[in-house]
């Protein structure tokens, strides 16, 4: 029952030796972001990587989810990384000072 007008967020997960790489595509917006928490299974994951290459927008709700993941990973002794962050999103991180919290790479 997806509304065709609503932007979606697709998640492709690849597990390898305790590393989970989530390829995200679409919007991290209030509608999609809460789903992400449900879609990602962090069992035995030591290192969480979000591939942001195909992410169009990250809104605060998305950031919030990302920060929740970071908190969960840190509590579990793991780490979290953002890769292939598009320039404009990266500049949002920079502009807001979140780049200091999140390990985000282009």
């Amino acid at each position, binding site marked *: 029952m997806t*509304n065709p*007008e*609503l*932007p979606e967020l697709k998640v492709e997960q690849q597990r390898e030796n305790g590393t989970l790489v989530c390829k995200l595509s679409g*919007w991290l*917006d*209030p*509608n999609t972001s809460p789903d992400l928490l449900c879609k990602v299974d962090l069992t035995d994951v030591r290192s969480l990587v979000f591939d942001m290459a195909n992410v169009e*927008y*990250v*809104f*605060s*709700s998305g*950031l*919030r989810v990302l*920060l*929740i993941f*970071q*908190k969960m990973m*840190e509590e579990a002794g793991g780490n979290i990384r953002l890769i292939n962050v598009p320039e*404009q*999103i990266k*500049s*949002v991180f920079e*502009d*807001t*000072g*979140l780049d*200091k*919290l999140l390990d985000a790479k282009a």
Partner: protein
Amino acid sequence: MMNWLNKHSLAFRLSITIIACVCLVFFVLIYFISGRVEKIIHAQINHTAQEAVNAYAGDFNRLTSDVEQIVTNTKNTLSQTRENDVSSLEVVLNSAIQTVENSDLNFTEAWVYTFPAEDVSTGTFYISKYLKNGKIDFSSKKISNFYEAFPWFKEVPKKEKIYWSEPYIDVDTGKAVVTCLIPFKFKDEIDFNGLAALTVDLSTIQKSINNFSFYETGKLLLLSRSGLYVTHPDNNIALKMTIFELSKKINLPELETAGKKMFAGETGNIWIPHSSVYNGPVIFFYTPIKKIGWGLCLVYAQSVLLKPIQRFQIIMTIGLLVGILTLLFIINQICKHSTNQLLQLSKLAEKYGRGDFSESFKETPFSSDIRILAKALSNMRTNILDYTEKERKDAADKQKSQSELEIARNIQKASLSTKYPQHEAFKIATMMIPAREVGGDFYDFFFIDQNHFAVVMADVSGKGIPAALYMMKSQTLIRNISKNNIDIADVFYRVNNELCEGNDTCMFVTVFMAVVDLLKGDVQYVNAGHTPPMLKTQNGYDFMSPKKNLILGISRNTTFAVEKIKLNIGDHLFLYTDGVTEAENAKAKFYGTDRLKKILQKATDDPETNLNLVLSGIKKFVKENAQSDDITMLDFAYLGSSEGRLSLPADNKNLSKMIDFLKTDMAKHCVPQKKQFNVIVAAEEIFSNIANYAYQKDGTVEILTYVHDNIYYVRFSDSGKKYNPLEHKDPDVTLDLKDRKIGGLGIFLAKKLSDTISYSYEKKKNILTIGVHLL
């Protein structure tokens, strides 16, 4: 005294005063004149007395002279005859008596006495006298006792000289007589042996003296040599008493002195304080009859003198009384007349005082002094009437002009729209401060069509109702002809021709009109003789220099030059009339364009505020000076086209719609890519905030985008509960993740990602605007 006088009427006061003065003058005059008159009368009476006495004395002298002459003649004749020549004696005596008879004298007898020289007492009398039958009787008789008959003869000196005897009573006739005699010697005689004499009857003299009248009571008194009264009003005194005896008797020494003086040959008068005869004071006048040594006196009562004076005084007093009465009557009449006039005037004044000016009068019937008052009163009446008439007229005029003013003002007021259209593309404010008398200024604003908005500023020539009506006509024409007609040149052409129609009074109107394309900001305008408007750009307000066109209403078929400019978002058009620049202060200085420009440096984006700013500037300049012309202003702010408008239900499901809209809009406004992303992120945050929290049920989010001053603005408005997200504390992104709550991040992002962000609550709407620089 004065107080007492003042209590009485004018007539009384005048009468008292004048009568007092007149009486004083009169009495002084009477006293003075009386004294003078008394003296004059006294002198006159004295003189008359003197003359009377002298005349009488003269008569008496003449009489005695006659007698003396006869006696002397007789003596002379007899001295040529012998003593015994009796016949001669008879002839002489008869002739003598005849002579006497022919004169005025009343004699008794002429006689001769012969005697022996040695013895006078015995001799012979020869007497000639008239008998009763008229015949002359001559007789002789011998006597021996001559001294017995004539005892006074002893005193007669034996000289050939006239001698007058004292009066005595004749023994034969019993009449008072006096004898004039002269001793002589007959022819050839050695010694005196004869006497020639004439005895005169005094009764005639007494009678004539007694008949003498002097001022009614005046009496003559004849005194003999010895002082015996020959005549006296009192019979007990006449021939019985001398003046000296009388003096002693009545104890009046002055009388004796007067007698002595008289017999010594003096003339004079004395005043006797009381006379029993006159029963009052008398004046005693005396003079001597020198020839025979007698005296003549005139006695008259002093009252004789007083009478004319008293008469004079009485006449004067009567005259005075009559005069005073006449005077009183005249004064009373004059006063009455004057008082009546005054009363008449005071009645009029009282009437006037009550406001009844119906009765007028002429000053001419009034006496000269009152005429001044009358004239003043008359003038006062005229002036008051004129004044009240003028006042009434003025009041009527005032009322009329006031109502005219009111009408004109109402026309003007009714014509001027104050209801500003609510439009996203512009904001407008107008102001019209009418002068006391309507000046004919007007402004106007209206939509020509959906996207074209017209602003008009105009000033009609003249004032009052004509100006107001012409204003209304102009305004109606402009509005009607502009309807769906954006060809502004055509509008002016047609409006002008219509205004020229039947414009006999040559009224005209200056007009500035601009038509704004609200989408593009393109403006076309015509200035027909109006004051150049001002344009606000990035550099602030400045005067435009529009092409000059003819004013409207003067020349038919005029073409008007149209000019064009483009308004950027945030630009203003400021229109005004000369009532602004020519606002005059007490020193007759105009507010002027410089001051206008200067005050507009403080202008804001809000037209209303700007107009108030200018007005306060003008008020500060003119101070208390009365406003002479309408002050009319219009400020038009161009806010840009309303393309960027979006209204969405407040639901996160609509997020992409908003983002799509923003993407398109920002692309149109050439917002840089990076900024576009920031705007979208920030906008999402704001939108979802509204969607999540603003409404309890459904609501909408209004989104407006516009560019102003090279800033791209996105304005969010919702009518949800009042909430200012900017009041939230920013989250501390520097804190460790563990210590930080995950929340408040959204607005933090919005703040960080926009160049400007502002919140306001207007008309029950939360308005949050973010902006990013275009360059």
